[in-house]
């Protein structure tokens, strides 16, 4: 693409992959299908654009489902590997594989594809071809981020998501779209360039590793990672190499990576592009933004920050935890005083993603599992909220809660869905949001060395221990870490704040006396743009919401398969971090950490 035409020769990535009878091109297909569809849309007449886009996204969805079907969920490591030799003399290859975390996010992306296409049916009537083509390209780029196992491929996809999003916002957004698009682009682009510097530094560090250093760590590493000490962008190799960095180096790399990824998440205080971009974006843009684009940041933190610089992560976890807690409360309270309903939901993402990152930096099993589930769940429930607000906007052309009210009387079906997804967002047990929010908070709660150790003294002996049962008492649920109960308790206030702003929103626009914008009259609606829309939701709109609602219930009632599937990748990250912890704070190291490090 840049220098030369890639030599598209698939090579076998791993020895055991040769025995793998599963279709090797499944993952590249997930990228190629949307891209090809985009080309097709560009060639086809405008009237057919949406149909083609729908078919293309459905094929991609089937592909993602097939990948989930053949994926061996209980196994550790990456699967469905596929590698094309590209710029191999630079150590750059088109290398793709997924673990369960990546595959879940790929599936989420594929699911939101057809939903976004269907949601745009009546909203987008102008420049249809451009719209759907870029929507499909966006999907390809996002999928690429999740399946990449090569740093350069990852980064290209990561950055390339900006372009389609920029176009979607700036061409199809609301009044202030130009400013929003430019701010979105420049803000996140600036951050990612710094992140690139950090990633390239890791690659450089690896290439300058002397064999003696590696041998000191363990000569067997050569067998698994032959590229160690050579110039490569293979993520697995770099992960090993990065852990050999000193604490100081790791801290700098962490800072650089967070500069890019935290903006994307977005973490307080680098969140201000988000409300603007969300508010101005077209409905499908907001859905993708909330559903997947923000998850690129959280995914990248999980994939790179944690395993690349575990020592620094352990050290700086409280600092990031504080930012998360501030984001949860600050973002939540700002939601409460919004009058633009879309902006309210946009700010709620700042608060919600605070929970997600807090769980991640709890650095224990419950927290990280909860955090990954949070990525999925937030995509489902907030995505659905944006869809619902879009449906209102299409009918009333306003998002102001001063001009809208009591719509339950006018649109009972819409109101039912609105209350349902609000409850999912508020974290009602039985729906998806609860499981992830609870586990994130539980993770933060557990993660404190002050609790004492998880093993050792019998329960009988615990009777002799004083305050907090620490100093040798058995505290089975404690994990090493430096967040602790106060982080969970203060972040937990966010649960109350979430109820405050979400019920405020529902109380305004769903319940109460009916308020409709002046001059809006359903009976004599001559506006051709929405004469196609009935007063309440039409079948297409209900069809868009049903899959999301079903998943919200399914993940809330039976999260076990997802939790089991996440177990292996989370376990490996926790082990890496705990091993690093022992080098940072050997005195404070607990029995549990020692055990896990020894494994």
């Amino acid at each position, binding site marked *: 693409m840049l220098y030369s035409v890639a030599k598209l020769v698939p090579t076998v990535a791993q020895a055991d992959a040769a025995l793998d009878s599963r279709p090797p091109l499944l993952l590249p297909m997930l990228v190629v299908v949307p891209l090809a569809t985009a080309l097709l849309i560009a060639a086809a007449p405008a009237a057919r654009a949406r149909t083609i886009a729908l078919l293309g996204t459905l094929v991609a969805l089937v592909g993602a489902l097939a990948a989930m079907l053949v994926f061996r969920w209980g196994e550790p490591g990456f699967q469905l590997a596929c590698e094309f030799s590209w710029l191999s003399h*630079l*150590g750059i290859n088109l290398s793709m594989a997924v673990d369960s975390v990546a595959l879940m996010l790929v599936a989420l992306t594929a699911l939101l594809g057809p939903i976004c296409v269907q949601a745009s049916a009546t909203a987008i009537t102008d420049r249809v071809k451009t719209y759907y083509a870029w929507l499909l390209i966006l999907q390809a780029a996002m999928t690429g981020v999740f399946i990449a196992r090569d740093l*350069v491929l990852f980064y*290209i996809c990561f*950055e390339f998501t900006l*372009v389609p999003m*920029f*176009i979607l916002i700036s061409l199809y957004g609301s009044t202030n779209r130009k400013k929003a698009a430019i*701010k979105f682009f*420049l*803000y996140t682009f600036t951050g990612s360039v710094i992140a*690139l510097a950090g990633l390239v530094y890791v690659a450089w560090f690896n290439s300058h590793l002397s064999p003696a250093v590696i041998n000191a760590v363990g000569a067997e590493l050569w067998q698994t990672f032959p590229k160690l000490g050579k*110039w490569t962008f293979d993520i697995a190799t770099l992960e090993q190499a990065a852990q050999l960095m000193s604490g100081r180096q790791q801290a700098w790399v962490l800072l650089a990576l967070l500069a890019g990824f935290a903006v994307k998440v977005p973490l307080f*205080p680098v969140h201000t592009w988000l409300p603007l971009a969300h508010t101005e974006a077209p409905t499908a843009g907001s859905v993708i933004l909330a559903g997947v684009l923000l998850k690129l940041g959280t995914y990248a933190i999980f994939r790179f920050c944690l395993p690349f610089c575990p020592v620094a992560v352990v050290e700086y976890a409280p600092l990031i935890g504080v930012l998360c807690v501030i984001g949860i409360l*600050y973002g939540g*309270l*700002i939601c*409460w*005083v919004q009058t633009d309903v879309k902006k309210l939901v946009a700010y709620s993402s700042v608060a919600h993603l605070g929970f997600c990152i807090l769980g991640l930096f709890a650095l224990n099993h*419950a927290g990280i599992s909860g955090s990954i589930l949070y990525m999925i769940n937030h995509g489902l429930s907030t995505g659905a909220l944006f869809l619902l607000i879009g449906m209102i906007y299409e009918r009333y052309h306003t998002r102001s809660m001063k001009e809208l009210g*009591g719509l339950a*009387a006018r649109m009972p079906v819409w109101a039912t869905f609105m209350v349902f997804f609000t*409850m999912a967002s508020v974290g*009602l*047990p*039985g729906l998806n949001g609860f499981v992830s929010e*609870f*586990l994130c*908070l*539980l993770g933060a*709660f557990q993660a404190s060395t002050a609790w004492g150790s*998880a*093993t050792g003294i019998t*329960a009988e002996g615990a009777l002799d221990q*004083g305050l*907090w*049962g620490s100093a040798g008492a058995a*505290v*089975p649920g*404690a*994990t090493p870490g430096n967040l602790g*109960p106060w982080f969970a*308790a203060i972040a*937990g*206030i966010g*649960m*109350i704040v979430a*109820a*405050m702003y979400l*019920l*405020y929103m529902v*109380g305004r626009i769903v*319940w*109460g*006396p009916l308020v409709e914008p002046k001059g809006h009259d359903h009976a004599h609606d001559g506006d051709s743009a929405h004469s196609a829309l009935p007063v309440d939701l039409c079948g297409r709109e209900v069809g868009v919401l049903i899959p999301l609602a079903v998943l919200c219930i399914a993940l809330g009632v*039976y999260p*076990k398969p997802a*939790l089991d599937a996440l*177990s292996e990748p*989370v376990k490996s990250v926790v082990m890496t971090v705990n091993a690093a912890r022992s080098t940072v704070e050997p005195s404070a190291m607990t029995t549990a950490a020692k055990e896990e490090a020894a494994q």
Partner: protein
Amino acid sequence: MHDGAAGVTAAGAAASGPWYAMLIPILPLAGFVLCALCAVFRVRSKLPAWITVGLLAASFAVTAAMYSTVQGTQITTVFQWITWSWGSGPGQSFTANFAFYLDGLTCLWMLFVTGLATLIALYASEYMSHEAGAGYCRFFAAFCLFVFSMACLVMADNLVLLYLGWEGVGLCSYLLIGYFYKKPSAVAAAKKAFIVNRIGDLFLALGIMLCFVHFGTVEYKEMFAQAAVYTKAVSAGEIEKVPLVAQLIAVLLMIGAFGKSAQLPLYVWLPDAMEGPTPVSALIHAATMVTAGVFLIARTYPLFLISEYAMPTVAWVGALTALLAATIGMAQFDIKRIMAYSTVSQLGYMFAGLGVLTSVGAAAHVFTHAVFKAMLFLACGAVMHGFAGQLDLRKLSGVGSMPGWRIVNVAMLVGSLNLIGFPVITAGYWSKDTILGEAFANPSMQGVAWILLLTAGLTAYYTFRVYFRVFVGPQSYEPGEELHAQHDDKHQGHADHGHAHDQHAHGEKSGASHGTHDFHPHPPGWAINTVLVILTIAAFAAFWPIKGTSHPSHLGYIGQMMDASSAAYDPHHDAAMYQFAAHKPAPGEPRSHATFFGFDAHKAMMWVSGFVALIGMAIAYFLHYAGRTSATHSRADSWLPAAGPLANWAKHKWYVDEFYDFLIRKPLLVLAHLFHIIDQYLVDGIVDALGWLPKGIGRLIRPSQSGELHGYAFGMAGGLAVILLIVFLVTN
């Protein structure tokens, strides 16, 4: 799903329970689904009500079957919920299954929950008839969902599933308080209930987390097994050996219980919750949901027994809430709100009962209160329904002697007698008396005991204030207007009422003591009357489970049920626990009783509490019945100035709502606006300033900034290329 044997994983001491126990929540859930389908298919008949009544009755039957078979503690597992493990060591797995913990406590609660829910659904089939259509379906769907959630709460075998039920009932309460969603006050009340409850829920959630950290489990069975070690220490008089963390769990759970059960300082949502339809007030906000806090403490009693501070706090908060709510109830005029404050007050009794270590007395009071308070609400609801939403006791008089209102009158009288604890013949007397007696017998709880006794007198006064004003005396009424607005909205509902009052009654409200001459109250129909008759019988019959068997020191069948549950408490065995709050007794020191002026506290209370109730009733008779000739005025009006500003303050609910608004809501709102401004102008302002910097420089090299999109894309690709080039040069 119905194959219980396959899913059962119960290990250890607890035997696996009967598979059909899972039907108790599943049947109401099926009811929810069916009612929702009724809404989808636009059913306009009473079908949703009959579905609900039928399925809830079936659920009650299953509960009865469960009660007759379950011995000790049994666990029925349905499926694994938030359950997974990431290692084999302690604390390396999390287990929260959809599993049910069946013991006496579960049986007791589910019996009255499903039983009352069935009756109230039947009542609601008539009460809500003017809402036929989508509203009717919505009502019964939420009703069924409530019973499902309550069943999850009560039957859960772990704290996380309890939390699911806990928040689930909160959601249903939210939906049903806000049932008349066009009314801003109903929407506000619903929101307030949910948010205030969430404050309690946060503490409950933190308590669950602390439980997991400390015990490594959230399952009751495991938890209690580990807590037994601490119990032993407390029995030996060595409470200091229990780590503070373990003691803190009970404190956190306790605050959660205060939220759900409307205790100080989180009681403010319950009176406002009366915005909901009356059957909802009766079922959710009087009989069942609000007792969830009592249930939580009874369920986790082993954790409370090892906490030095939790138990006395529960007792004191309960007593103070009982008193405060009773004083407010004395000064209100809305009969439904009086009943609401009475509920808060009686819940205070139950908490005090738990706190003075008579879990049996508390449970008995929950049971009797559920029956008679539901009956009182339903009687008030019948009045409200018949008088077009009139609830002001100054505008109704002599209802009991009007034609067609006899059953309501009897129900109201029996309910009131139970509520005040009228001696010997009422079940409410026996349950309240147990709590009072136990409080006076506890040497460290004398203050609590006296507050409760005083409250008993106040209770008798405010209860019979309602009865003497509304149900007896000269006949007089004025219709309310609340329901009129709704009736006008929904004319179709009127066909079966046969009263032409709604057209005219509006404008002619002035003056005449008979209200409007066109308005005729319509007495309740068969469904409402049937339910009231059954409940009246049940209120007397409730005497039997309390006194039915002659258990030496306990309350009959209820005592037996509690003994076979987690709330079991043996004062002889756990002698030292009895008074650990006051002082640390030497090991083996016998249980010491406090006395009531030298008399045995229990025996004395049988006389004293009854006497206090009669005094309160007599005062109400004197002030509100004797010599009263109109609905509006009674002798109390001339005595009121003697109370000074106190009466006015009580009428304004001691300004607690205003206080919270000023202290919490307003500052938060200011803070939120402040944050919003900071976000726009400071946090984002810095970004804009930084963004302007390159723009300024950019002006110098303007030609390269075309502003076209492909320019940016090209620039980005170019930038990447440059970086890769550098990399390439470095490596070679």
